Structure formats: C-alpha cells, structure tokens
C-alpha cells in the first residue's frame, strides 16, 4: 500500500498549503496511509466509535471553538482520549490558535499538529485533490507517449520496432513528445494520465546516435509534461496472415489499471510512413468524438444503395 510520511508531506507541501508546525519536529515521523480526510468533531465530543483516526484530521473554526468552550479538565481528558489513537497528524485551518493543553498533549503523545493559513473548505478541497492524486493507482509501462493534435497517443510495441523514431518524426511534424521509453500512468478521475518517470527532461535514445534532448533540440513547443492517454497504438511487424482492422466499424480496447481505451494494432513495414497514419488515427478519434464515424457513414450509404438496387431488380422481375 502507498504511504507518505508526515515529514515528507510537510516538507514538500509546506508552501502549497501554507503550513507551519506547531508541535516538535520529532512528532513528524508517522505515515499518512489514507487518501481521505476526517473532521474529528464527533470524536472530540466523545463519540469515538467509527472514528477514522488513520486519516489526516482537519480542525476548523467549529472544532476549535467547541474545544475552547470546554472546561480545562474536560478538555484535557477528551484530547487525551482522542490522541490515544494512532493519528497521523492534525491540521488546524485558518491559522487558528489552539488550546495550550492540546499542544502539550500532542507533544507528549507524539502527534503532529500542523497549522494552515487557508480556510477550511478551500484547504479541504486542495488537500483531497493532492491526496487522491498521490494515492491514485499507478504503474510504469514500456512505451512512448505523444500528444498528436491534442489526442494522447500511447505507442507500444517491442523494442526496436521504431517507437522513438516515430515519436521523433511526429515531433518534426509539429506534434509534442510527453515521454519516451517509460511512461508512468496514473488513474485520475477514471482517466489515464501519462507522464515521465523522472523530471530530468525530455531525453530520448535514438538508436545509432545515443541520447538527445528533445526540448533543447526542437524547442519547448515540441514537448509537454503530462497528457491524458486517449488511444493506444501497438506497433507490430507486418505479417501476411494477420487479421488487421479493415473498416474500423468495431473498436478494440486495451485495459490499463482498470480503465479501457481504444487500441489499434498497426502493422509497420519498411518504407511505410507510420507518423502520417498516427496523425490520421488522432484526427479520426477527434471526428468520432464529435459524432462523425466515417466507417459508419460509408457503410450506411452502401446499405441504402444496395436496398434501392435490390427493390428495383424485384420490380423489374414483377413486370
């Protein structure tokens, strides 16, 4: 299972969530294991059944003003009761100040309290987005991701089939490279997002030449950092007996991390311009999204024609 330590979370997101640490730095060594957040209002009022302690606890004005309304002893007891649970950390919103007993107990019981200057609702939203992205299912696959007319095309196929060369050719034609050779795929909102596995830049290996930097070579307009993947194109060596799609009436699908995207098996052979075909795939995908399906239109016309001719033939026979 994925996790992030409170320390790492605090250090990387300090700026974004305008966080500061209230408790001692030693309280930061726990792990966040859940992508969800919890408002511990009920827990602090004493109802501790079904307390989602493993989540980050967000305390806003309501919780803090409730705690401040309690008598010292009451406050001490309830905080202690809540802090017995293995809570990763608490985040206080809007830069609110907390009861001194709370800070004391958090230090004692080793629970980090962070303070954010952002209002509760806004923080809640941003934090949820960040956590769900962080905990989203992901995997890395062998392939090349290019943005062709705004359509994310994942090129796959055996080593040496020409994915990188194809990406280069597409970049030359004004399309954009996302990443070559290894694509990190994350599921976000039921969509597959692809990006590079590292942030070194847009390097690629060209057989016989070595490493090149696509962004330096072709300019910043030739690259982008991430892209939703719309279509997978599997490049494969041409085989005479292979059953290639001829009309495009039926779609094949590939499943990646539980998300289905159309897949096209594209035979490549020497002298064949694969880049043009990939651009055609992208444009046809856009047309289909706009409701125009060329294969359907053509076959529809043919069927009408056949019907007409057939009934003409019948009426001739009747005469």
């Amino acid at each position, binding site marked *: 299972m994925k996790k992030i330590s409170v320390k790492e979370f605090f250090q990387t997101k300090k700026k974004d969530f305008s966080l500061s640490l209230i408790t001692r730095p030693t309280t930061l060594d726990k792990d966040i294991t859940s992508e969800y957040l919890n408002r511990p209002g009920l827990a602090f009022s004493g109802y501790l059944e079904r307390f989602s302690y493993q989540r980050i606890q967000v305390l806003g004005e309501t919780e803090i003003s409730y705690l401040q309304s309690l008598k010292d002893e009451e406050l001490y007891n309830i905080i202690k009761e809540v802090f017995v649970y293995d809570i990763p950390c608490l985040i206080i919103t809007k830069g609110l100040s907390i009861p001194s007993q709370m800070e004391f107990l958090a230090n004692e019981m080793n629970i980090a309290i962070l303070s954010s200057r952002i209002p509760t609702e806004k923080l809640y939203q941003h934090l949820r987005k960040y956590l769900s992205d962080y905990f989203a299912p992901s995997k890395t696959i062998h392939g090349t991701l290019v943005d062709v007319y705004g359509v994310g095309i994942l090129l796959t196929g055996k080593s040496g089939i020409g994915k990188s060369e194809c990406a280069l050719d597409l970049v030359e034609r004004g399309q954009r490279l996302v990443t070559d050779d290894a694509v990190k795929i994350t599921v976000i909102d039921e969509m597959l997002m692809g990006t590079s596995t590292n942030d070194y830049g847009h390097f690629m290996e060209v057989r016989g030449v070595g490493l090149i930097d696509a962004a330096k070579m072709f300019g910043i307009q030739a690259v982008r950092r991430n892209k939703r993947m719309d279509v997978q194109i599997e490049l494969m060596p041409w085989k*005479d*007996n292979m*059953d290639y799609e*001829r*009309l495009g*009436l039926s779609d094949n699908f590939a499943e990646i991390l539980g998300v289905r995207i159309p897949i096209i098996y594209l035979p490549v052979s020497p002298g064949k311009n694969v880049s043009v075909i990939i651009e055609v795939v992208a444009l046809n995908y856009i047309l289909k999204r706009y409701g125009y399906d060329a*294969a359907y239109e*053509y*076959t529809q016309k*043919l*069927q009408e*024609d*056949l*019907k007409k*001719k*057939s009934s003409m*033939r019948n009426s001739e026979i009747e005469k």
Partner: protein
Amino acid sequence: MIRKRIMIANKLGMHARPATLVVKAATKYRSEFKILKDDMEINGKSIMGVMTLAAEFGSELELVADGVDEEYLIKEMEELFASKFGEE
C-alpha cells in the same frame, strides 16, 4: 487462371460485413484475385474495391483468380457465397 460466375444470394447484398469476409478470405491466398461486375473490375483483396461494386441481392459477379493457389481461393469463395455469408 480460373473464372467463375457467382450470384449474390443474401438479401442485404454485398454490404460491409460480407465484403470484409470476402477480403479476409482472399488475402489468405497468394493468387491475384479480381471481381468483375457490369463494367467494373476491382481488386478482391481491397475492402473499398469490393464495397464499390455495391453488388445487390440477385446480381451476378465474375470472380477471377490467378496464381498458384487459385483453385483453393475459388473454392473458398464458392462456399462463402453459398453460405450467404451467414445471413438470410
């Protein structure tokens, strides 16, 4: 070279699905394969070609196969047309 006259026996005629079946069957063979209808002559291994014929129910085609496996190609075509492409 073998020439063979054959009739379209399925009600819907040579629409997209039967055309695909014809082309897929034909491409398995090495022989040249042409289909003639009226004044048209098309390559039987090309899907657009076969659909261009717009061969309706009851119309007649001439199949022309030329090559080492021409007999097998024609035989498979005869069976395919006789089966009405699995339609009515």
